């Protein structure tokens, strides 16, 4: 079982969260076309490595978090608010 350190609520059990999918895929712009949206919705890597994921803390703060987790060891390297993660993403 994962224990996710929520930036607002502290370390909480996985059961308090809802997994919301791959956070490496960002929604394309409205005019990006079917191929771009198909990739956004369906195409996923399956890395044996660090992976970014969205987790929504439904039983706590109800904030969306970007969790960087190792898919083999389940080690969690970072947890940050979605807004911060996206701002950093845009800055890059």
């Amino acid at each position, binding site marked *: 079982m994962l224990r996710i350190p929520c930036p*607002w609520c502290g370390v909480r059990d996985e059961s308090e969260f809802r997994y919301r999918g791959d956070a490496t895929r960002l929604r394309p712009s409205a005019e990006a076309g079917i191929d771009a949206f198909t990739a956004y919705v369906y195409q996923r890597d399956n890395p044996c490595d660090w992976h970014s994921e969205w987790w929504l803390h439904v*039983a706590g703060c109800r904030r969306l978090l970007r969790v960087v987790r190792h898919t083999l060891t389940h080690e969690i390297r970072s947890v940050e608010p979605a807004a911060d993660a996206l701002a950093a993403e845009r800055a890059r």
Partner: protein
Amino acid sequence: MSGPESTTAPDTRAGITCAPLAVDVIELAARRERTQVLKALAARRGLPLPALGWVAAARSTLVLAARPERWLVLSAPAPPGVALSSWRSACAACAAAIELSSALSALHLAGPAVRDVLARGCRLDLHPAAFVPGSTAATSMAQVPVVLSMLPAGWLLLTPSSTARHFREWLTATATPFGFVSAAGVTVASLSGESTQ
């Protein structure tokens, strides 16, 4: 012969007392980048908003900060709509004021066995060193969302009203081995007797 045991002798005294709490609940949700404005406004009204994870008490009112940038304001019951309208107009520019008096059902728990009982449903660490008086947290218990607060005068639980009966049944069944006593209602004023932060 054996090492220290986990269990205590059967306790025939009340291990946990449970009382319903009649209360009006208004949720104040700060608008985007208006949190400081809301805090200043609340302070002017004599109700400082606590930091996330804490409870504040003032003027017979409890304020719970269980979610970021949101506060639950608990006060004695007034006629329908009165509590809301006093906030709605005051904070329109900086916050949404949402009436949740009917949405949430409040229980007050006290007694030496409260932590033992809550540990049978609550995944949080409620050890006195980890969850000190004045703490509040949103979590789930018995598969139901709950806002759990520890006050000097006991524990306060807010659960959705549609599952209140389910929660109460779970609580009663879980608490019975510890000596469960149903008590008469308590008031917000009696719980907000002293500031906890």
